[in-house]
């Protein structure tokens, strides 16, 4: 269950005692924190000194963002951790829940979230959009989108963001980019010019998050076009080949299942997706803002709940 209790911020006087490993990732491991039960620790795998120093600076900058550190649905860093005087990782708020992975396929959704309806999906979309809007107000953006970077409450769909050290943040004129990049969710202008990855803006993040929302609603991508099945997802995005129609012209077809789920969405939500992927493909300013998604998803949720 996701807890809304505020976390007692660890103080320097509290020695940190870590427990067992609870998750392992490409960058490090997540461990229980025995001395601070409301927190977990991320301990990085061995890294080059230069990379570790960069991460340490980034975490230091994140620690200064106190509003975000206090947000109950962001697993924000709370304290840096050192071992033998060397930066090792950080403590972060502990958040319970299930990743969004079960929502990527009907077969897993029926197994892990059998009671979920489209209303739950709308709640997830609303919460993620709301969190992204909050991050945006602090010039922080998601660049590494993965279903494992979000935790949801199986009971009501309330959703949080974890793995926040992969976010792009800014401290003054210095931008701390992400070391991780997901081409399958990237905006076309980033795919064409990967050097821009070091400093993405709101418009690129909106494209990325819209793709995530599309996946949550339909289990697919608007660029999952059968006629171009030999292309990788990033290539399909760059080429802008979608199945959404628009202006009476479709550039391709998709699987019956994805098409059925897309057609079943309310007109307003479909309009948001068309703005993001058709009008917004070459004109990023047309992409819906996070606050627009908050309103659209909220209305959708209310319509479904009656």
């Amino acid at each position: 269950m996701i807890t809304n209790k505020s976390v007692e911020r660890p103080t320097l006087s509290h020695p940190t005692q870590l427990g067992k490993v609870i998750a392992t990732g490409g960058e490090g491991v997540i461990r229980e924190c025995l001395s601070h039960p409301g927190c977990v620790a991320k301990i990085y795998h061995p890294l080059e000194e230069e990379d570790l120093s960069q991460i340490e600076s980034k975490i230091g900058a994140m620690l200064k963002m106190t509003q975000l550190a206090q947000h109950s649905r962001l697993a924000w860093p709370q304290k840096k951790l050192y071992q033998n005087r060397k930066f090792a990782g950080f403590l972060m708020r502990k958040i319970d829940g299930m990743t969004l992975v079960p929502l990527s396929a009907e077969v897993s959704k029926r197994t892990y979230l059998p009671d979920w309806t489209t209303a739950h999906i709308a709640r997830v979309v609303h919460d993620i959009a709301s969190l992204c809007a909050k991050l945006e107000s602090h010039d922080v953006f998601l660049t590494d989108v993965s279903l494992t970077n979000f935790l949801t409450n199986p009971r009501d769909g309330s959703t949080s963001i974890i793995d926040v050290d992969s976010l792009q943040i800014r401290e003054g004129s210095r931008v701390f980019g992400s070391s991780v990049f997901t081409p399958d969710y990237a905006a076309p202008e980033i795919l064409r010019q990967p050097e821009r990855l070091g400093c993405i803006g709101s418009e690129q993040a909106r494209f990325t998050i819209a793709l995530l929302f599309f996946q949550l609603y339909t289990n697919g991508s608007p660029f999952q076009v059968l006629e171009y099945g030999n292309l990788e997802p990033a290539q399909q995005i760059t080429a802008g080949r979608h199945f959404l129609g628009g202006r009476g012209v479709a550039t391709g077809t998709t699987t019956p299942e994805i098409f059925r789920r897309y057609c079943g969405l309310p007109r307003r939500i479909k309009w948001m997706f068309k703005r993001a992927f058709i009008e917004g493909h070459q004109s990023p300013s047309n992409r819906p803002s996070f606050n627009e998604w908050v309103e659209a998803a909220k209305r959708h949720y209310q319509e479904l709940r009656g």
Partner: protein
Amino acid sequence: MKTHPHSSSSSIVVHPEIIDHANNPSPRVPLAILCDTSFSMHGAPLAALQHGLKTLFSEIQQDMLAQLRCDPSIWGFGGRVSQLMPWESTFVGATPVPELNAAGSTPLGAAVFTAIQAINDRRDTYRANAIPSYAPWVVIFSDGVATDEWREAAAKLSMLAKNSRWNVVCLGTGPDVDLECLAKFSPDRPPLHIRDASSCHSFAEFFRWLSASIKITSRRSTSCQTTMAPLPDCIDIVE
């Protein structure tokens, strides 16, 4: 029949939705496991390999993402090449690990050619269903010497590894394995070696490493370079 993915039942259950791409449009990691089932593997070595395969599927099924994305198939080559387990999503309570029986010679070349064709056919199926796929994995186990014309197969597979990013992992077991032959299938990635062919522990560790590497792969974009997990100490890298 539906079985909860975390049930402790060891019975073989094949969920009718496994192969249904409509119910699982996740990107796939095609994994072809080629097992030497020649006569010399009879007894403890084959039992250890079987135990390792069970470890692999058990590990993958504990990871929500990997179980949706990993698409394994198992071939045996002992006397002849046979597909012991068809392409299957691992999303189910128990993935059937086939019984391995040792007999005959070691047609390694034929096994590799068969696997390459099968992988290409499988990827055509993905494309027809608009399902993205990761670079394929081919894992080869052998404890002896190939008894057929294997060089052409080795050249083809190594070219796929070099030009198309296929991931080829060769594992030799026991004292009599021809490691030089295995090295030809993947020149850029030296073969691995388990000295004690009957060591259940070593096989289990190898398959844990393989499942960890698959999990890392399945968390990334399909266009990303493959990153392997760190190798366990009980596995030697043959330089």
